[in-house]
């Protein structure tokens, strides 16, 4: 009994001693921390402070939690708790876990600085506030920030942001007191702190205030400031640009001032209107000055009989003046415009009289919408003729001159106008019946102009046009004898003439008759294409679209455009065939492209012939070119009408097989496959059928005599042929019948009929007879209808 009691006492004592071990105490503390009982945990951790390495860190952590809990209620007590954590550093045992402890110290320091920061914000004295903020910033700079870096950075940014706002406000106060230099200094500080805090609003607004202060203080500023001002507060922007506009006007920088007013002060305001009025007063005064100059020059022109250089100078300067005044003084621009035609006539007469045709042409083509004036178009044609007759066509100008000439001659209005101008022709009437232009069908004609048959008294306008064309063509041949240049200009002339003729002969309503180069040069292609599209929409004549092709430049929709796409596509297909580029061909043979080609009858109808002729040329170059076979196959599959292509394919493949088999460079099995493809496209051709039958025979014989590699495929192919036999095939298969007959005779000599032989089981036949049986079956099936 005593022993039992002694044992119990020993156990209890052992347990009590165990409870007093530091690690047991530490575990207890952890348990209490887990239950948020920091006070009790602190008591235990303080006891084992020097005994357990984690105790100081955990003690600091408990204090930190306590500090965080009470900081909103009692900042001073919280600060003292956080300081206790920091002061633990002085009594840290040598075996303590320092790194864990340092993390807690960083956090404690952060909370002290944060409490300080919020307190500083409540200070009334700005100087003290700045001083305290800077001190607090120093604390942040000096702290280690371990594990709490992001929070410290954010806190730092808040300090900088507060500082920048304070300096901005200081600046504003100083600016209000007209102390601009100190205001600018403070705005500069604000910019510096705003930059550190990434506060773009304060950053841009401070720049705006600097700009405004400098304007108020009559100082200059760098242009780099403008980019920040555009991002500043709206009222700062308005203030700045209003003052800046006034400054620019005072410096007589009217163009920049107008640009700024239109861009940045684009709102309703009497004050902005006043700025605009100043600009208008300036412009009006300038215009009056300019008009006085014009009037003076006109006076001089009259006094000196219009010397050409003065006319030229006045004509050119009047354009600039018109441009300058037309927006704010439109009536004045009209008045200046009215003096131009007279000056134009004077200049043109001078250039023509002096045979300065290039100057004359430049003068005409700069005249707004000159192509709408029959007089100008006629003068243009005349000058082009004159320039050509002087031998002045060059590589640079021949296209422009020829196109202008043709446009002028093909304009029936030019001739109509000429008839109106003269009186010698009063005893005649004139007819457009054979004119080469549009025929003036839509115009009301004078009484002496008609569309009747030409006669001695009803004069053909067309004959006059042709006469002029002939004269011009003679000039081209006489004056430009250099072979290369002559060819170039004649080719161009023929192309332009043919194009304009094609369009003119269509008699399309409201079309502008001009040569392609002319319409492209003066951005008038739409005047041709739109009329052609409308005409096609009504009458669906594809010739109309074809005529529009040379004019279809920079056009992205409409019938002519689609027609052009289809022709370009056909050209690409032809080129792919010529270059034997099967990959390219496959990419072109899409359903979309098939639809595009089939949209236009003329293109789809000629498509097969185009391909046929292109392939024919390739075959003629090399009739053993196997690369053509897949190309032809693709073309047959793509073409809606493909009879000719199939016929071409069959003949080409048949010829190729015969040639190569005869030369022993193609085996009978390959040849049979190809010949069958030829047969598929030409089942009624006795030539193809006969050759196919011969190849069947060759293959069966090869099978019988040799170790035939492709026997399974070959018999499969023969079965396919058998299932696709045409009447012509039946007509032509004497050769196979003969072969079958030969086998029958051999069998007979062995006392067997064909049917008995076929019915024989393979097990009763040797290898050669099995082969013979297979051939006999094929021949029997191929020759039986």
């Amino acid at each position: 009994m005593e022993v039992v009691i002694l044992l119990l006492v020993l156990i209890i004592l052992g347990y009590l001693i165990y409870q007093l071990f530091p690690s047991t105490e530490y575990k207890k503390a952890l348990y209490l921390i887990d239950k948020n009982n920091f006070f009790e945990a602190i008591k235990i951790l303080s006891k084992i402070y020097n005994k357990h390495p984690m105790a100081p860190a955990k003690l600091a952590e408990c204090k930190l939690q306590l500090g965080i809990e009470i900081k909103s209620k009692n900042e001073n007590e919280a600060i003292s708790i956080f300081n206790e954590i920091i002061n633990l550093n002085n009594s840290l045992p040598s075996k303590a876990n320092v790194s864990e402890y340092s993390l807690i110290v960083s956090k404690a320091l952060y909370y002290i600085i944060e409490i300080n920061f919020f307190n500083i914000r409540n200070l009334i004295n700005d100087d003290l506030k700045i001083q305290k903020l800077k001190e607090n910033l120093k604390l942040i700079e000096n702290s280690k920030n371990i594990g709490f870096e992001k929070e410290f950075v954010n806190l730092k940014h808040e300090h900088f942001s507060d500082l920048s706002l304070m300096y901005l406000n200081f600046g504003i106060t100083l600016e209000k007191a007209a102390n601009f230099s100190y205001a600018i200094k403070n705005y500069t500080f604000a910019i510096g702190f705003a930059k550190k805090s990434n506060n773009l609003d304060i950053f841009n607004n401070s720049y705006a205030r600097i700009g405004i202060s400098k304007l108020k203080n009559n100082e200059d500023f760098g242009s780099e400031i403008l980019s920040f001002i555009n991002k500043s507060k709206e009222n700062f922007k308005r203030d700045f640009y209003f003052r800046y506009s006034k400054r620019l006007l005072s410096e007589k920088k009217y163009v920049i001032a107008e640009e700024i007013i239109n861009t940045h002060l684009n709102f309703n305001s009497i004050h902005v209107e006043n700025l605009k009025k100043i600009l208008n007063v300036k412009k009006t005064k300038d215009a009056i000055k300019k008009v006085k100059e014009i009037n003076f020059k006109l006076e001089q022109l009259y006094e000196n009989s219009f010397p050409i250089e003065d006319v030229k100078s006045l004509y050119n300067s009047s354009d600039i003046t018109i441009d300058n005044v037309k927006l704010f003084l439109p009536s004045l621009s009209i008045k200046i415009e009215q003096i131009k035609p007279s000056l134009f006539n004077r200049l043109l007469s001078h250039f023509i009289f002096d045979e300065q045709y290039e100057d004359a042409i430049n003068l005409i083509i700069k005249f707004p919408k000159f192509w709408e004036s029959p007089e100008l178009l006629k003068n243009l044609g005349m000058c082009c003729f004159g320039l050509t007759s002087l031998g002045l066509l060059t590589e640079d100008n021949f296209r422009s001159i020829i196109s202008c000439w043709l446009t002028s001659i093909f304009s029936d209005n030019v001739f109509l106008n000429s008839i109106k101008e003269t009186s010698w022709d009063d005893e005649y009437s004139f007819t457009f019946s054979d004119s080469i232009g549009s025929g003036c069908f839509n115009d009301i004609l004078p009484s002496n102009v008609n569309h009747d048959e030409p006669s001695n008294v009803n004069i053909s306008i067309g004959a006059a046009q042709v006469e002029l064309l002939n004269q011009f063509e003679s000039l081209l041949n006489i004056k430009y004898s250099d072979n290369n240049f002559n060819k170039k200009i004649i080719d161009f002339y023929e192309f332009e003439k043919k194009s304009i003729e094609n369009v003119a002969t269509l008699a399309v309503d409201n079309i502008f008759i001009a040569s392609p180069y002319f319409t492209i040069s003066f951005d008038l292609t739409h005047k041709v294409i739109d009329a052609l599209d409308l005409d096609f929409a009504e009458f669906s004549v594809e010739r109309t679209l074809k005529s529009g092709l040379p004019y279809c430049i920079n056009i992205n929709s409409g019938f002519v455009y689609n027609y052009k796409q289809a022709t370009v596509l056909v050209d690409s297909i032809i080129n792919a065939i010529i270059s034997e580029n099967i990959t390219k061909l496959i990419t072109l043979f899409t359903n979309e492209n098939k639809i595009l080609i089939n949209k236009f009858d003329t293109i789809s109808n000629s498509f097969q012939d185009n391909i046929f002729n292109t392939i024919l040329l390739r075959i003629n170059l090399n009739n053993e070119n196997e690369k053509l076979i897949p190309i032809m196959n693709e073309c047959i599959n793509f073409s809606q009408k493909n009879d000719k292509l199939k016929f071409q394919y069959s003949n080409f493949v048949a010829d190729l097989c015969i040639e190569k088999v005869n030369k022993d460079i193609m085996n009978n099995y390959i040849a049979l496959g190809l010949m069958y493809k030829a047969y598929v496209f030409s089942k009624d051709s006795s030539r193809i059928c006969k050759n196919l039958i011969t190849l069947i025979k060759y293959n069966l014989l090869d099978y019988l005599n040799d170790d035939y590699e492709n026997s399974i495929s070959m018999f499969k192919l023969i079965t396919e042929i058998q299932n696709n036999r045409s009447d012509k095939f039946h007509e032509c298969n004497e050769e196979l019948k003969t072969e079958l007959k030969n086998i029958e005779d051999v069998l007979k000599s062995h006392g067997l009929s064909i049917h008995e032989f076929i019915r024989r089981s393979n097990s009763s036949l040797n290898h050669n007879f099995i082969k013979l049986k297979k051939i006999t079956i094929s021949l029997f099936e191929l020759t039986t209808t």
Partner: protein
Amino acid sequence: MISPYLILNIKQDSDKKQILKAQILAMKNKIYTLQEIAKATKILLDPSKRLAADFMFPAKIKAKRPSKISVDFQFEEITLNDINENAFDSI
């Protein structure tokens, strides 16, 4: 290519009678060859060819004789002094 009007030294509106008279004068003056004079006469007596020859006469666009431009514009005189610089003061 010389204008037939120039060879015969006549105006654009000359009638048949004047052309024939001019032909005789031109032959007397001997400035141009007989062949050139005959060709010019033939052109001017053929209305179609004459129409083609007329193409080489410049046509004038409609124009009025330029006269002085009046400058009696009314405008409100306003100077920079009339502008209130602080109209959009932002502080």
